[in-house]
């Protein structure tokens, strides 16, 4: 058993030095005062947390929450039929799964940039519509909330498909046959049998999409063009341009608390229901 101690030692050291320690520092900074030239100074205060109640920041928090919620719902709506299709496929199932997994293996940055390329004023969509004579001036497709939402849905869609597919795959097909035998129409079977039974996958997928969307930084920055400020951009800005580390730390702590509570709460509820 001595081996186990030495085997776990490097990861313990790394986690303490580069996960717990930075966390502790940010927690401490969130109770300090902003330094004159950036950085932090004493005295200890809860001023940074009081500033969170400012309507300006509450709006940003609410917007981030709604954006993440909208992205999660859209991912669910788009992913569910796709997962259903793959689980029902009789041939090429592996190919379809690989096609869903492929984005995991492609650069997230490049995939976000692809939408910048398609949506900009001189992008493919605007140029095509103009050459077809449908529009005469380019549509402002980029740098708004819609573009950010599209980027988030596109980026995290596979995270929703795979868990739902996993539960659909495990579902007993005789339950669906039973529903049909008892006279349920396909739509009724879908919403009253298949969807309720795939709940664990839906919950897992929603957590996997909602969490990164809540703290998203890259997508709103590139596709929102700085106009769509979400909580992730707020944190980044406080640590770089605004040089208000205590406030940036307080926002980080709030974000961490929300994410942890969400994961913990959902996992607990699910595990209770499963047994």
């Amino acid at each position, binding site marked *: 058993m*001595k*081996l186990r*101690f030495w*085997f*776990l030692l*490097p*990861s313990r050291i*790394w*986690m303490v030095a*580069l*996960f*717990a320690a*930075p966390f502790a*520092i*940010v927690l401490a*900074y969130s109770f300090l005062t902003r330094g004159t030239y950036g950085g932090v100074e004493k005295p200890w205060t809860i001023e940074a947390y009081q500033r969170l109640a400012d309507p300006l920041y509450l709006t940003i928090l609410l917007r981030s929450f709604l954006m993440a919620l909208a992205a999660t719902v859209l991912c669910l709506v*788009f992913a569910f*039929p*796709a997962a*259903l*299709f793959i689980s*029902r496929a009789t041939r090429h199932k592996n190919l*379809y799964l690989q096609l*869903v997994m*492929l*984005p995991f*293996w*492609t*650069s*997230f*940055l*490049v*995939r976000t*940039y*692809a939408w*910048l*390329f*398609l949506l900009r004023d*001189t992008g*493919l969509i605007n*140029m095509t519509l103009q050459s077809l004579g449908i529009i005469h001036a380019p549509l402002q497709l980029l740098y708004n909330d819609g573009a950010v939402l599209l980027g988030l849905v*596109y980026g995290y*869609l*596979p995270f929703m498909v795979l868990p739902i597919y996993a539960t659909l795959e495990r579902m007993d097909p005789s339950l669906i046959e039973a529903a049909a035998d008892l006279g349920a129409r*396909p739509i009724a079977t879908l919403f009253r049998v298949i969807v309720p039974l795939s709940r664990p996958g839906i919950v897992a997928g929603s957590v996997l999409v909602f*969490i990164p969307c*809540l*703290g998203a*930084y*890259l997508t709103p920055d590139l596709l929102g063009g700085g106009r769509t400020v979400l909580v992730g951009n707020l*944190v*980044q800005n406080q*640590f770089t341009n605004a040089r208000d*580390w205590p406030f*940036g*730390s307080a926002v980080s702590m709030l*974000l*961490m608390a929300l*994410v*942890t509570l969400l994961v913990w709460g959902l996992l607990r509820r699910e595990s209770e229901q499963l047994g």
Partner: protein
Amino acid sequence: MKRWLAVYAVAFFAFLHLPLLTLSVFSFNSSRFTTWEHFSLDWYRAIFRDPQLIEATWNSVIVALVSTAISTVIGTLCAYGLWKRGSKLLTGSLYLSLVTPEIVTGVSLLALFQWSFRSMHWHLGLYTVVLAHVAFSISYVVIVISARLRTVSPSLEEAAMDLGANEWEAFFYVMLPALGPGIIAAALLVLTVSFDDFVITSMVAGVDSETLPMVIYAMARRGASPVINAISALVTVFFGILILISQQVREA
């Protein structure tokens, strides 16, 4: 319903893959505008003439290789140790590090480095990027290897010890070969995640240690350009080769 699902699936896969495909096609367009002129490799030539891009790519490769090597070793040892006997605290913190929003990880590591540099004459550089990448990669490795370990029977190791191997020999000669494909899959996953990371890297990289995603991002902020299309296509092909390798490993 089946037919509607199939029609939907075509649209779904098109949505998922057409953006990158069109991007790659237009990287071979001679015009810098989004109207097709004729085939050209000019934008690819432009990549190799840009010293900043070459240096950033080089930095990314070094960071990805070094942090993959370190995190794969640490993560494999950790997964094996946890398989022997669990540790709620360690597992909990690994999962917590996985769900921490990237930007929070980034700023907290920046705060740590700035704080520890106050008393020393060190600066942010490639090594701070490596430290950060290892920190977020360990949990990926542990998850992949742990999944593999669940399929390994403990009697394999017991048999080795009954036959006279000590703990270390049983690990090195029996368990490690059994984990081989899992270790390679974990390493490839971490390699791609590390090579692609922008958010955390941009917070902890020094002025002279820009990585490829940082340069792509800076160029994209100034607007789309055919050169980024070409880099994107190359990065996608590079990642594609990695998937093919990992698939071969999984089948082996």
